[in-house]
């Protein structure tokens, strides 16, 4: 992969990120929201105090001044204080980030793994029973809103059987050792990550199936067969690596949807991550939180897209070696 390719992609990602930052700035200045409503009536703030607070929030002066302050503080990762909790936004986010990282991470890994596996197998054996069953199944998964899965799982699995906790991140205050606390967290993760996985499995599987079908007619597969390779090896060594390529970028773009899925899933399971924070922040019109959450989510997707682009570059020698 040439440096030029890498640099180009990195610059592209940074530009998009910057666009998000700018977009954020304007978007949240359109909303009419009193930044000091939290303090209204609860303590007697003098006019000077109010002005000082507004100034500290970067909400005074011309739009340009505000923009400069905004950019500077964004670069310092200073997103101000939450309108709602009055805690620093960064702290709120730092508190909730790990939970979402784990949930989205595990679900994404499972989704990609299982989705690609099913898609590859279905595409390879097009028209077979496995293909028909799995494609129908993945289509239904694809058509089902993930929160509906969540509702059903919650009702049937958690509500009826009690095998899994109905929500939360862990058993609070329980007396657990290291291993037990790990298991406890895993236990709490099962239903939310299952929800998120089921919710997005379908699209990944369909994407992979399509790109598998695209490779099916390729001559190099005939070459591989002619060489005497087993069908399974033809698939794993020749078809899958090629079919993965177009999937990579489509999958990267889908990350944005998984982030959306995290919002509903975390809501259904009261799972205290960034998704739930987003839902709450929107409900409260907590602009500083929203701004930061939006930036974090965008940055995550932009970053993952960059990773996907670079992975693509690594996987595809045609890009890797292009100058």
């Amino acid at each position: 992969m040439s440096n030029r390719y890498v640099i180009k992609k990195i610059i592209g990602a940074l530009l998009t990120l910057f666009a998000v930052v700018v977009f954020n700035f304007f978007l949240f200045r359109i909303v009419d929201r009193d930044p000091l409503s939290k303090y209204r009536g609860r303590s007697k703030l003098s006019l000077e105090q109010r002005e000082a607070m507004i100034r500290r929030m970067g909400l005074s002066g011309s739009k340009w001044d505000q923009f400069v302050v905004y950019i500077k503080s964004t670069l310092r990762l200073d997103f101000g204080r939450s309108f709602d909790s009055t805690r620093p936004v960064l702290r709120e986010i730092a508190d909730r980030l790990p939970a979402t990282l784990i949930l989205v991470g595990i679900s994404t890994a499972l989704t990609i793994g299982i989705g690609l596996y099913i898609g590859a197998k279905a595409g390879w054996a097009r028209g077979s029973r496995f293909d028909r069953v799995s494609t129908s199944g993945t289509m239904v998964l694809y058509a089902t809103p993930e929160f509906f899965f969540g509702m059903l799982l919650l009702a049937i699995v958690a509500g009826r059987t009690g095998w899994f906790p109905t929500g939360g991140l862990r058993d609070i205050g329980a007396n657990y050792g290291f291993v037990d606390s790990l298991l406890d967290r895993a236990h709490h993760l099962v239903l939310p990550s299952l929800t998120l996985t089921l919710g997005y499995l379908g699209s990944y599987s369909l994407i992979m199936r399509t790109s598998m079908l695209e490779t099916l007619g390729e001559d190099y597969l005939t070459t591989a067969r002619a060489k005497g390779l087993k069908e399974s090896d033809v698939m794993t060594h020749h078809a899958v690596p090629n079919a993965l390529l177009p999937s990579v970028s489509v999958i990267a773009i889908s990350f944005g949807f998984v982030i959306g899925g995290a919002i509903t899933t975390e809501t259904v399971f009261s799972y205290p991550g960034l998704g739930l924070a987003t839902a709450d922040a929107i409900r409260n019109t907590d602009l500083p939180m929203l701004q930061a959450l939006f930036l974090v989510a965008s940055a995550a997707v932009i970053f993952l897209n960059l990773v996907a682009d670079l992975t693509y570059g690594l996987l595809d020698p045609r890009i890797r070696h292009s100058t």
Partner: protein
Amino acid sequence: MSDSVASISPRGMTWARRKRALARVWRELRNDRSGFSGLLILLGFGLVALCAPLIADRSLLLAAAGRNNPDLAGPSAKFLLGTDDIGRDILAQLVWGSRVSLFIGIFATVVAVLIGSLVGLVAGYVKGKVATVLLAIDNFFLVVPFLPLAIVLAVILGRSPVTLALVIGFTSWAGSARLVRAQVLSLSERGYVERARALGANSRHVILRHILPGVAPLIIANATLIVPGAILTESTLSFLGFGDRLSPSWGKLLDGAQSSGSITLNAWWYYLPPGLCIITVVLAFTLFGRALERIFDPRLAGR
């Protein structure tokens, strides 16, 4: 056909061609079991949505409509799908909900496809700085996480079905722009476009005669595949409480089912029908759209 050709005007011939093309699409669709059943399901839902006033009176949707009805009652002869938590007929809400959900899904798609096609067409046909800028904007909308953006816009713009549809449309055009652009780029390289240029055609001719007819099927197929996404988004927004509370969309019904505890109470008639409607319509649109894709894009034949 050959014997009557001499009498057919060029315009008639074009019509004949269109008719034949349509007939071909129809024939192939008939032969595509999943795509055709998707179409039938959609027609069914469309019919229900159109005939909603005939099936259930609009006044049944009013909060006070359940005045003399039992709350959360199971299906019965009087209430085929039972009642909701304030005693209203669920079937009536489902029927009217199909209107809202389909309207938002389709209107949002129209918005998305219009923006997407225009951007895609321009970015594909015009090269240089304009295309670069358009692609950057497209990339932005492609990469920025869509649901938070849609929610924020919904909060800013309000919650009526129309604004909701606009929001969803405005946030989901990027993919089709990309698709259209790729197709336009590939069409521009085709021999027949080159040939038309060599014949002396200007851009208008090339776009109208070759590029647009070439991308149109793709746009139609793509649109059919955007609708389910828009319906899903609407249901998600409504479920999260950002929909229009006074319009009984399916997502709204699910929200109501969830907040009234119908799942815990085993009131399946409240949460299953809207969920299944969403799944069915999304599935039907997806099957239909994929079938159109197969028909319009021979490359995908046999999928």
